[in-house]
């Protein structure tokens, strides 16, 4: 039974840790399905994490914080869109620039604003997202097996966790069941087909980049106001890149993206829970455990996933041609 409880606790932590990955991964999915590569997920999340924490700290309202986070991420998305759609620049370079911009600017602004060494004040009360407890979670927790699953695993997360996981079926539905989804997928595969069909390539791509910005904003806000209580320097810790790896692993499909993000989340949860594993005298150091998710990222990106075919027009600015 003790093992089972531990197991549930690790899974619970998996869900918490997978949430920002999942939001960022879906954000990347919209953008890349439309043909705009986005390695700036990391930067957008970081920017959103800072602004959500800062605004929540100043106003005491986490909802205002969330809005500020989304807005800041959208500004960066707009920048990426401007560079890569309107001015047909290189999407990778634009993404790298956004990551640098966010990494530097967040700490700088945080220091001059709060003077706490590049962090925001700790959030408390209305400044954080609080867990939502499902009905009867308390009373059912004693029921064997089902009880812990219901009260520990499913109940007791912040609203953003549920939003993230509901975004999976929603994204699937949008992508495969709506006109917008058809056009979005088409513009990432062959923008010329969309253009000659009389639909605006630029409009579609901006829409996709904007959705990406909103989701990255939520992901960043979740990091700073739900998973932790405030912003610290570089708090995204490469999650934007892990989300990209998950996206490739998932071959740009929403349900698979959820699976990939849960896998990465599980590794992070294991690393967090079992800081030192003692294998009969040999102790695996905590650093090795902490490195696990990143090692897996490298392994997966090194081609363990087999052939992942990205959207065909990905990374290429659209130039009208006959």
């Amino acid at each position, binding site marked *: 039974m003790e093992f089972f409880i531990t197991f549930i606790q690790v899974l619970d932590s998996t869900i918490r840790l997978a949430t920002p990955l999942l939001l960022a991964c879906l954000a990347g999915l919209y953008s890349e399905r439309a043909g705009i590569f986005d390695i700036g997920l990391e930067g957008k999340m970081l920017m959103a994490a800072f602004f959500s924490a800062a605004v929540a700290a100043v106003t005491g309202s986490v909802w205002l914080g969330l809005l500020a986070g989304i807005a800041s991420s959208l500004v960066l998305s707009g920048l990426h869109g401007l560079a890569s759609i309107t001015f047909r620049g290189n999407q990778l370079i634009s993404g790298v620039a956004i990551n640098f911009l966010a990494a530097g600017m967040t700490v700088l602004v945080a220091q001059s604003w709060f003077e706490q060494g590049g962090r925001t004040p700790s959030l408390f009360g209305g400044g954080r997202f609080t867990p939502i407890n499902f009905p009867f979670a308390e009373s059912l927790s004693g029921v064997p097996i089902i009880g812990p699953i219901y009260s520990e695993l499913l109940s007791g997360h912040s609203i953003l966790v549920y939003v993230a996981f509901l975004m999976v079926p929603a994204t699937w539905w949008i992508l495969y069941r709506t006109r917008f989804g058809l056009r979005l997928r088409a513009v990432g595969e062959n923008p010329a087909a969309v253009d000659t*069909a009389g639909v605006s390539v630029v409009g579609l791509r901006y829409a996709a980049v904007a959705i990406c910005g909103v989701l990255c904003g939520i992901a960043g806000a979740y990091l700073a106001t739900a998973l932790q209580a405030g912003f610290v320097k570089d708090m995204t810790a490469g999650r934007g890149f892990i989300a990209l790896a998950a996206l490739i692993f998932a071959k740009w499909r929403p349900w698979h993206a959820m699976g990939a993000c849960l896998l990465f989340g599980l590794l992070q949860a294991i690393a967090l829970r079992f800081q030192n594993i003692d294998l009969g005298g040999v102790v695996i150091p905590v650093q090795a455990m902490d490195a696990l998710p990143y090692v897996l990222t490298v392994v997966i990106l090194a081609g363990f996933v087999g052939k992942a075919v990205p959207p*065909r027009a990905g990374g290429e600015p659209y130039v009208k041609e*006959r």
Partner: protein
Amino acid sequence: MTVPAIELKGISKAFGPVQANKDISISVAPGTIHGIIGENGAGKSTLMSILYGFYKADKGEIWINGNKTDIPDSQAAIAAGIGMVFQHFKLVENFTVLENIVLGAEDGGLLAPSLSKARKELKALEEEYELFVDPDKRIDEIGVGMQQRVEILKALYRKAEILILDEPTGVLTPSEADQLFRILDRLRAEGKTIIVITHKLREIMENTDTVSVMRRGQMTATVKTADTSPEELAELMVGRKVLLQVDKVPAQPGKPVLKIEKLSVFDSAGVERVKGIDLTVRAGEIVGIAGVAGNGQSELLEVLGGMRPGQGSIKLNGAPLALSGPGSDGQARRAQHIAHVPEDRQREGLVMDFHAWENVAFGYHRDPAYQSGIFMNNAALRADTERKIEKFDVRPPDAWLTAKSFSGGNQQKIVVAREIERNPDLLLVGQPTRGVDIGAIEFIHKQIVALRDQGKAILLVSVELEEIFSLSDRIAVMFDGHVMGERLPHETDEKELGLLMAGVAGEAA
């Protein structure tokens, strides 16, 4: 007199200093097929792009069915009843046929109702025009002929009354092209107006009602097809008399240069593409390999050119060639005096972003004449390129232009110049005039025949039967990896070759 379906009045369009279209006026009657013919770069595609809202004309008016119409974008063109089938199809490859047809013409936010409505309408269209496609197949699962039908259906689904086809037969086999024109006939019978852009004279003569000729951005003539001849059209296109038939004396074949015995070639998937063929090419003759694309001709050329391993025996002037491992690459082949004009000049013949003079070096970049110590002697290379450009009349004559800024014909001239000027014993030529205008075709054909007359052996692969007939001294037909038979051009005809190409066995020669 009926109101014209399309009337263009004084259309002009310039790209920077280049006047792509100059004061073009044209009028097309409804229910007819109108051909627009001209060399590459004559401005045909620009004109049609203006009609489809891709470019905006600097001057001029467009009238559709007697109404002055503004076409600022493709949306407006579709609304005006214009459909366009581009040379390079605008299809999403991993979508189904149905999804491609619906894309951009959906009825609402949700897909399901649009798709089921399209499915029904598609069925009706298919029956009306005998345009059969499987709506649930993905584009990358169907052949180019089918894909083109999807493009036509896309236009019809959008209620197009005017259909523009840009170089529609460029990617089709002869039988697919025949099918296409049967479909167009049918559409004309239903009252649609069709504009076909092409540089193939035969298609114009056989299928159009009226024809306009463009040269250097201007419309030089519009005539009834019945009142003109291929020779007259060719002259109007090029601006001078053009020899449509290759002028050549009978071949004087000498000793065998290339002797292929029991050659088999497997592709990367392990499928046998060439199945134990025998073939001989002698000095001073051109052997043409006819066949529908994909029957092993490409693989044959690739083995000979050192791009792919093979099994069996190939002898050049009596000495065996390595077919795999060391000594079987393109470098070795060139050292053995085999020159190769590959089938796809843009992928295999040239690096499109490199200058003409750099492209002239490829394959021969180790030539001592191009070296200066450990460095390339670029000055010598450029001087050599300028000489070749002049001799082969490459236009514009500028060695510093990148390959992609030349027209198809001039790109091909660069490749042909590079290979022929090496004075090879054996010249391999794949599709030498694909996408090349007739002025350049005439020139390239002349060069090939001239090389033959110097006593060199030439192996020609072409899907154009006309080209096979006019160049070859001997014709071998390939089908499914076998040589179905060999014929002499004056003892056979297109019909017999067509049967051999379709795999109907004749007697082996």
